[in-house]
């Protein structure tokens, strides 16, 4: 899971979390998050456009990274969340924690304004 600079805001780091983010694949997401945070990238955008599934392990990794980013004045938000993944966030009440946006452009702007 590689990261890249947002096409819309150079200070925003985008991680595309694709496929099944189950317990088997969460370590790859954790590694991408930790690498970004270690490099001082605290405006994190998780692009879920190609995600088919997000398990509790994956959500936990995002939650911990979000806390880390926020403690450094940044944030972690989500964009392009597929309906199934959104439903899981809603069921677990995590839509109140993770800000979600329809597009990368919208999310990048929000991260820059807020951060």
């Amino acid at each position, binding site marked *: 899971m590689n990261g890249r600079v947002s096409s819309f805001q150079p200070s925003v780091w985008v991680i595309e979390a694709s496929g*099944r983010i*189950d*317990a*088997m694949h969460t370590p790859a997401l954790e590694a991408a998050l930790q690498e970004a945070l270690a490099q001082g990238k605290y405006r994190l955008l998780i692009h879920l456009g190609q995600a088919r*599934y997000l*398990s*509790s*392990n994956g*959500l*936990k990794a995002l*939650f*911990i990274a979000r*806390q880390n980013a926020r403690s450094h004045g940044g944030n972690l938000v989500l964009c392009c969340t597929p309906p*199934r993944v959104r*439903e*899981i966030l809603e*069921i*677990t*009440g*995590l839509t*109140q*924690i993770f800000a979600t946006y329809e597009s990368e452009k919208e999310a990048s702007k929000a991260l820059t304004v807020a951060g």
Partner: protein
Amino acid sequence: MPDKSCLTVPGRLDQLIIISEFIAQAARQAGLDERDVFHVQTAVDEACTNVIQHAYQGIEGGEIILTCRRTDDTFIVTVRDHGRPFDPSAVPPPDLGTDLNARRVGGLGLYFMRRLMDEVHFEFDDKTGNTVTMVKRIGPRPQDDL
């Protein structure tokens, strides 16, 4: 669907995709709609992850035994393992309260299972090990299945 479908796999994380496909196929054959199929897949994925990470503590060699069956108005999945006894009462529920800094996300998997299924039961027996039984209520059996 046949009265009962069974699958036994090694208790490893790379088996989660195989389990997910098995559950999806059994649930579709039982007549569940796609939303319910996804709910059951997610609940079973969390149950099996729990087995691998906690009951077997990441140590390979144990098995996960899955059984799916349909009754007139339910789809029932059981997940069995021979790992460490699991006591759900020892897992605190996730703290999803309003204090952002105090929220804890431990216990999310169990929370998922209980939110997505209509019933979740845990049993432990020295001989059979841990058994998780998860029930999804569904509509009546389609006519062409009778």
